[in-house]
């Protein structure tokens, strides 16, 4: 259960769906003379916008892989988790969030739900309540602010909590390494190197971002371990414009160290939905009739 707590905490799951892979379709920079930090700040700012009033149904598959005949092939049956999630951004700057996530698959974890309130103010701890389906009761969890937590796997996948963090641009030094074409798109290749404050809580010595110049979204990310070896590749596809935000509905992370991949497929997503004020409370964890009735009305926006 511990891994579920960490996976759910601080809204990491919602960020998993939406972060890093979004871009506003409006207000594109006119100037080419942007600094790397400005670009990454801009990309980072889209994350919260994308997570506001969102209902999503996502499938997270993970497997060990090999490359055969120029194809990436899973050599074991993939592990699959299907999760439905509702998220609201709150506060004047929309920097606080409330979310509820329910595991639909696998059968072993079906019905486990988590309610999370996270705050931009680092002095306020994330609040989370876990619904234990075996016991039929809600339990408060203590997850802290997550500021000093070692990165952990999200739902047993190759995505980690660190991969999903937003609002941490101050903790990196950014440099534009190159500009040019990547898979037919004009991109910046931006290097992020962690500052000392970040080094203590990161698995990476540097991160490379391939940022589309036109849409300002990440097309590919590579991370390097503390020995400066290539560690992970994250690839994106199926970009869609939803509510004026570009979203990659499919992303795959390859852990090159252990040859294991995880693919997140956002099967359904509705943004800008109206959520009942009391829906994101403990009631939705135990009152299934109420929860399903509310979700049914929101699923119409898929």
């Amino acid at each position, binding site marked *: 259960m511990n891994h579920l707590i960490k996976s759910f905490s601080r809204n990491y799951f919602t960020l998993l769906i939406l972060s890093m892979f979004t871009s506003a379709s409006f207000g594109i920079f006119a100037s080419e003379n942007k600094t790397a930090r400005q670009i990454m700040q801009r990309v980072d700012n889209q994350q919260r916008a994308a997570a506001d009033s969102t209902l999503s149904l996502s499938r997270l598959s993970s497997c060990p892989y090999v490359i055969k005949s120029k194809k990436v092939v899973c050599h074991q049956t993939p592990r699959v988790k299907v999760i439905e999630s509702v998220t609201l951004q709150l506060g004047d700057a929309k920097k606080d969030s409330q979310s509820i996530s329910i595991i639909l698959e696998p059968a072993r974890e079906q019905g486990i739900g988590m309610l999370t309130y996270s705050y931009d103010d680092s002095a306020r*701890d994330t609040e989370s309540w876990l619904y234990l389906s075996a016991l*039929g009761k809600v339990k408060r969890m203590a997850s802290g602010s997550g500021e000093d937590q070692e990165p952990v796997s999200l739902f047993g996948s190759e995505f980690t909590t660190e991969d999903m963090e937003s609002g941490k641009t101050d903790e990196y030094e950014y440099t534009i390494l190159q500009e040019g074409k990547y898979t037919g798109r004009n991109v910046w290749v931006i290097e992020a190197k962690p500052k000392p404050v970040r080094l203590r809580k990161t698995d990476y010595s540097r991160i490379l971002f391939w940022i589309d110049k036109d849409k300002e979204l990440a097309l590919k990310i590579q991370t390097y371990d503390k020995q400066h070896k290539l560690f992970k590749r994250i690839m994106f596809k199926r970009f869609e414009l939803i509510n004026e935000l570009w979203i990659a509905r499919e992303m795959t992370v390859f852990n090159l160290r252990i040859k294991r991949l995880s693919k997140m497929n956002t099967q359904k997503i509705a943004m800008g939905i109206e959520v009942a004020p009391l829906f994101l409370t403990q009631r939705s964890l135990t009152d299934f009739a109420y929860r399903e009735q509310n979700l049914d009305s929101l699923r119409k926006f898929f």
Partner: protein
Amino acid sequence: MFFRLIYVTILLLNFSLHVSAEESLLDGDELFTDVYENSAYEDDVSGIDYSVSEGLELGDSSLQDSSSGVHTASWFKKIGIGFSGDLSQGQELEIGRFNFNLKYEDAIFPNAYIKLDSKLTYFHQKDDLAETAGTDYGHAKVNDAWFQYSYKRCVAKVGYQSLFWGVVEGSYALDIINPLDTTEPLLTDYSELSQSQGLMLVNCYFSDSDFELFYLSDAKVDKYSHKSRALFDQLESSLNDEWGVRYSYHLEGVDFTLMYAHLYENTPHLKVDLLDPSFLELQSFRYDLIGLSFSWAIERLLIEADLAYKQDQYKNQIFVVGQPVEPDDLFEIALGFEYLTSRNHQFSAGVWFFDAREESFDLRPKHSQLWSLSWRKQYLNDTLSLSLLGGWVKQPERFSLTALAEYELDDYWIISSSISHVNGAKSDSDSQSNNGLPLTASEFSTQLSVKWQY
């Protein structure tokens, strides 16, 4: 000189590798990317798409069809089945069981929800329960069979279900609504250790608080066996209703709960007649419970407490016909904490102060304590879970240590194994040796559980 040459060569190699890596950044045809991009687009039945890119279609703002591969919400998907086998070996085989589990849950119409969860168990003839019964046998059990209907701020839930009160895990200061089912092995879901009962539950929710009312018409007592239950059935048929209310208030980081309940004792007393050895009767008395619990989350530390005031408690396990017994009021407290380290080790500890029942005819109260300490961590992408649990009870004295490993083979199979060491005093009647020193019993046991769920 030779080493300097190697050093310079390494430096040059490093530089050239770095340059070649940087040069390839924009090609989009690095070996791996090439493989990745050129893979056939094929979805397997398990949902893994072995390739990624069909070309970026950034100019297309229309929504793509998102219906492919969606989660099918058919009634069939709401059915869950499972098989499991449990084995436990101490000095001899203690548990040998095979279980079949069937579940169904669904929102059958607006604002309504049902859940059915039943289990059929076959007890092998070497299983302790089967040996007591004298033969192998099968037993069906209903864990959940309830209907829930939600209306405005309230929801009613009627049927077979378990109700858990209190927040400190492993203590029974407040978690005493449902009696225990001790026929279940300890490696099973904790929920199955609680005996489901037919009850009605009403909850009403407000912005910062919620209210709960439960009522059950027929109280039950702890279950120790499936066969030869005549005395227990006789007792349960004489018991009446139980009810209680609970009010919870939530602040940022803190939950408070107040409880009141009118209950029967879950663990019955044994009544004997010293003049008539054939006389044997079980008794369970009504009492009132007033409880308070709270949880307080401070960063990664969770502090929990359960306080219980129980009226009309009888401290003797055995009553003698003709011997007067007086009820007493008891106060119990359970404290617990959970802490998640920055490296994601999860520690928890708890202590429960309670009055243990006196098993002899001695009327002296036995103040007891149960201490517990546990550690847990996930490894290998959360497929392997390791945990240690230590416990110590003061009266009757008992120490136990259990190491548990759970490994998920895939999304369906999970293997759990444990090794336990128990060191405890024997029962009061034989706990004193001839020289007055207490006798202790020490035993190692291993347990294996294999479970498949779909």
